[in-house]
């Protein structure tokens, strides 16, 4: 048996009941992490996670597995730094091997304004507890020898911010770690169950309607990706969210010679090497809203062109697989977490293209919110009512990609 299989823990599936203290819609990373922290930190185990397909079948199984905290606004840096730290301890905590590896992330700049952004990023990260510093071309070359500092003559590398704590982890195994940990403590995970509506008593949400019958709940949380506006509409909550497709691809597997994670705002692409040796390459989400998961050749072509301008060796690598996920992007490109104004209905959405890295902190904080009935300080700035208050968490420069 290979080590990938040997190290998996067992899933304990439980039979469904008709009523739970908490029902979480969406069996991806965020939903399962919330269930896990409810069970482990707050002793709330009468919880069901309802998944329309199989667990991790949405964006949790389609992302580019990057964990980082190098955002541009203090609230985001602090939140994602918490997440980064929780990730680092997750293997010890759960006993699951999530293939976590701290690699460091170079965010490259090719223009004076690009450098300005990276200098600012390094300063604000450092001030808020994330380790990031500015590096010059020679240091970049030392960190990642494969980089062509001339950018194929077109995108010369002037410098980068280097986010020391950035890491990767195997996305599926993160999902399973949380699922196993939650199920072990009695949480029910229902796969292949579609939520078709919300049960209401007056304005209050008291459960979910599914294609396998109604399930009542003290609190319903939406942790769905891609279709969140439809779920929220059942509670008459209108979200400032648009859904966009995001594409990525991997190459075949090669020797483990690519040391870190490379990101690039101007080229809007990013790359790392998976533990299996594949080069995992992602891009910016598609500009037009869409629910389509059909991959496009244009996306592959332009991303391949851009990424190989700074990493020319990639040109001779073969594309193994290209895929598409759909991302809920909020009006200010930051997640929306917390109460919705409708009793019994809380939400974790707007994860856009950066949901994977937020799984541990998102789950931890939402569990605390559900358990205590109050919003923890760390996520208070990300409440839905920020749009009404006109205090957005705009961080376009950091959140747009990756």
């Amino acid at each position, binding site marked *: *048996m*290979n080590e*990938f*299989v040997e190290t*998996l823990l*067992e*899933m*304990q599936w439980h039979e469904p009941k008709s009523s739970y203290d908490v029902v979480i819609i969406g069996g991806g990373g965020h939903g399962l992490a919330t269930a896990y922290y409810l069970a482990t930190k707050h002793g709330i185990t009468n919880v069901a996670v309802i998944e329309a397909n*199989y*667990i991790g*079948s949405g964006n949790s*199984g389609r992302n580019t597995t990057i964990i980082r905290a190098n955002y541009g606004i203090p609230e985001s840096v602090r939140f994602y730094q918490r997440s980064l730290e929780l990730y680092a301890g997750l293997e010890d905590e759960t006993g699951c091997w999530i293939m976590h590896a701290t690699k460091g992330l170079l965010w490259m700049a090719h*223009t*004076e*304004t690009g450098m*300005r*952004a990276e200098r*600012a990023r390094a*300063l*604000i990260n450092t*001030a*808020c507890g994330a380790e990031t510093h500015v590096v010059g071309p020679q240091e970049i070359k030392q960190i990642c020898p*494969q980089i*062509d500092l*001339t950018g*194929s*003559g077109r995108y010369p590398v002037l410098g980068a911010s280097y986010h020391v704590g950035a890491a990767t982890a195997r996305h*599926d195994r993160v999902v399973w770690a949380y699922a196993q940990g939650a199920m072990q403590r009695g949480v029910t995970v229902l*796969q292949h169950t579609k939520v078709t509506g919300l049960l209401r008593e007056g304005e209050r949400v008291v459960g979910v309607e599914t294609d396998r019958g109604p399930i009542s709940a003290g609190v319903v949380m939406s942790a769905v990706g891609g279709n969140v506006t439809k779920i929220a509409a059942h509670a008459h909550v209108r979200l400032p969210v648009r859904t966009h497709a995001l594409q990525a691809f991997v*190459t*075949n*597997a*090669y*020797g483990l010679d690519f040391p870190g994670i490379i990101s690039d705002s101007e*080229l809007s692409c990013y790359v790392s090497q998976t533990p*299996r*040796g594949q080069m995992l390459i992602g891009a910016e989400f598609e500009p037009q809203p869409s629910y389509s998961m*059909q*991959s*496009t*050749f244009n996306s592959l*072509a332009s991303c*391949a*062109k851009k990424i*190989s*301008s700074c990493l*020319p*060796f*990639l*040109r*001779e*690598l*073969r*594309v*193994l*697989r290209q895929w598409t996920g759909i991302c809920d992007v909020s009006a*200010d490109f930051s997640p929306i977490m917390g109460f919705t104004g409708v009793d019994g209905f809380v939400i974790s959405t707007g994860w856009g293209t950066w949901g994977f890295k937020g799984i541990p902190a998102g789950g931890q904080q939402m569990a605390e919110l559900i358990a205590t009935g109050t919003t923890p300080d760390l996520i208070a700035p990300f409440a839905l009512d920020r749009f009404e208050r*006109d*205090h957005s968490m*705009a961080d376009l420069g950091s959140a747009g990609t990756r």
Partner: protein
Amino acid sequence: MSDTPTSAPAGRIVVDGLPIPYETGDTVAVAIMRSGGHPKHGGTVCLGGDCPNCSAIVDGVPYVRTCQTAATPGLMVRRHPAVGNPSFPAVAQPDITRTPVTDHVSVSRASADIVVIGSGPSGVAAATSASADGHSVMVLDAHDGNEVVAIYGGPTVIVRRPEGMLHVHALRVVVATGAAEIHPVCPGNNLRGIVTARAAEQLHAAGINLGNAVSIGNAPVGVPCTPITGIIVRFEGSGSVSAVVTVGDDDVEVTTPCTTAIVGLGLAPRDMLSRMSGGLPVGLVGQAAEKFALPPCPTAGTVCPCSRVEVEDLEGVWARGFHELELVKRASLCGTGTCQGGVCGPHLRAFVAHHSGAEPEMFTARPATRQITLAEASADTYTDVFRRSPLHDEHLALGGQLDRFGGWWRPWNYGNHEVEYWAVREAVSLGDVSTLGKLVVSGPDAVELLERLYPTTVADIKPGRSRYVLLLNERGHLIDDGMICRETDSRFVLTFTSGGAANAEMWVRDWAETWGLQVHILDRTMSLAAINVTGPLAATLLQRVGLVDPPKFLQHRHDTVAGVPCHVMRLSFTGEASFELHHAADRSVELWRALMEAGRDLGIKPHGLQALFGLRLEKGHVIVGMDSELDSTPRRLDMDWAVKMDKPDFLGKTALVRTASLPDHRRLFGFTMEGRAPTEGSPIWSDGNVVGHVASSFTSPLLGHAVMLGWLKHTPFPERVQIDGREASVAQPPFYDPKGRRARA
């Protein structure tokens, strides 16, 4: 396996550094097997392009299926390492003056009503019937050098050919790719000497002697071999097959010695192209559409040669509660390698069917089936282009360091931004502002349009006068700024920021159409160049080149400067008297040179963005996108003076009315500090907390200290803060010439 040479070889390829002869018509895989080798150290060879067991590094590219690659003279082949993955291709540091040779992969495009993939019997039948119906038909088959890589929306069929890529646009696609042969899954299936029945036929036809061959299952046609009955239990041998062990109905194991084991274990549809094109008009015919029986549930051996997954791994995963095809796949990695389930798919399905009691559908396929390199994928693709002003070469000749900014190449500095700064403050300087957005709006509803678009009043601007304006979105957030110049009652020239110009043009047009107003909108961003003549001696310079009576502050008019017709706008962004000369792009070099020549004894110098950013910062002028944020209202920018809330309506007014009474914790302030300017983006601290950040900063040569614009985002807003470990104070901009005497001069 070896052959008896009957004639001179057609040529040689080089495999792992050694020359290997090949015969006419050989693929690389066949040539290697002709010489007694195995293209990948071991495993069943199918020669059908379905499995990873003949992948090698061909001319530097790893993972090339050698059964699909024709042997050509001197072709360099290296086998993948027996253990682990191949290395990256060597990194070549390119000569930046040359495009890499590999950059050139040619692309041709074609279209056909019907594209048929596969020229076997079902493909030919589909093509014939489509032709008979009057459709144009294109048949693509890997054996003719047309390897179909993927089908995308359109449908668009991506094809690799020896001469380059082919993109075919079709109305409908018919997948007639036939069926693949099922590989054996049992102990010993990684040995050399195992071939499928079709592969045996190919090798025999190529004149290759298969030695002591036995066949299990469906026997190959015309290949000398000993058929044996029963089910394969295992292959035995060290490195190569020496015997095959089978078991019959009597449960007795029979060991048959052999040097080649030919397996005919049935077929599986080769339907990956259709499984990746859900929702597209892609049909499936022939064997590719057939439902073949699954093989028996595997019990031991390698099930997925790409990801090196053993049957015991599948069992381990199942025992841990991963109880459906996708979860088994993801947990064991079975089917996630190069052949995307080509080999393991039927066995994986059989495994899940056996354990769950229900036969699962095969998983969705993803592009690409026949793999392409990133170079092949991106062939004929162009990255973003950056516009050049008509003065681009002038800047280079003057030593300008050009940088990309707002979609344009722009001079960052000409060597020393402080020298440029002083030229503006003390003498006269030229700035290339050709990149500004420039719209002409005219027509009977022009005033109405602008009154609705802008938060300031427009009707009271007299012809010949201009006004600085903010552009807000419906949320009341700043999206751009610029000037309105009124030319006549019904004709206006609008300017926008360089980076915001494209969006602003769409914005203005969209709203004009939405409101159904009668206006003409002409985008002159590209057709007009513009030079900003700025500094205390700017008027003197212009008088020398024929502008006898330069317009006064916030006036504009059409006049001739150095013989070039110009729209002259008198304004100020630098803090000194400034004249923007908008003129036809093709006269720009002439005008620039005339001004530089006429100003020589005045100490004229061009200035770049670096100096400009400092000059305007001394005046406290905001740069949209640098100082403003996504949700910057005029109030937050301390620019309420540019908003007339008593106007009947304008875009953003509703939002501004609503948010006016809300508590606000965000404000852009001016700051001053002794010493050098801190890095832009520096956090602003108060009482040990981060309370904001520096948006722009500049060490003012004139004032001798740092000036800044920065955001405070915690109330109450402190008066004294710490930046870069130093004390800084809030200070009301402008920091320079607060009364604006020089700007208006």
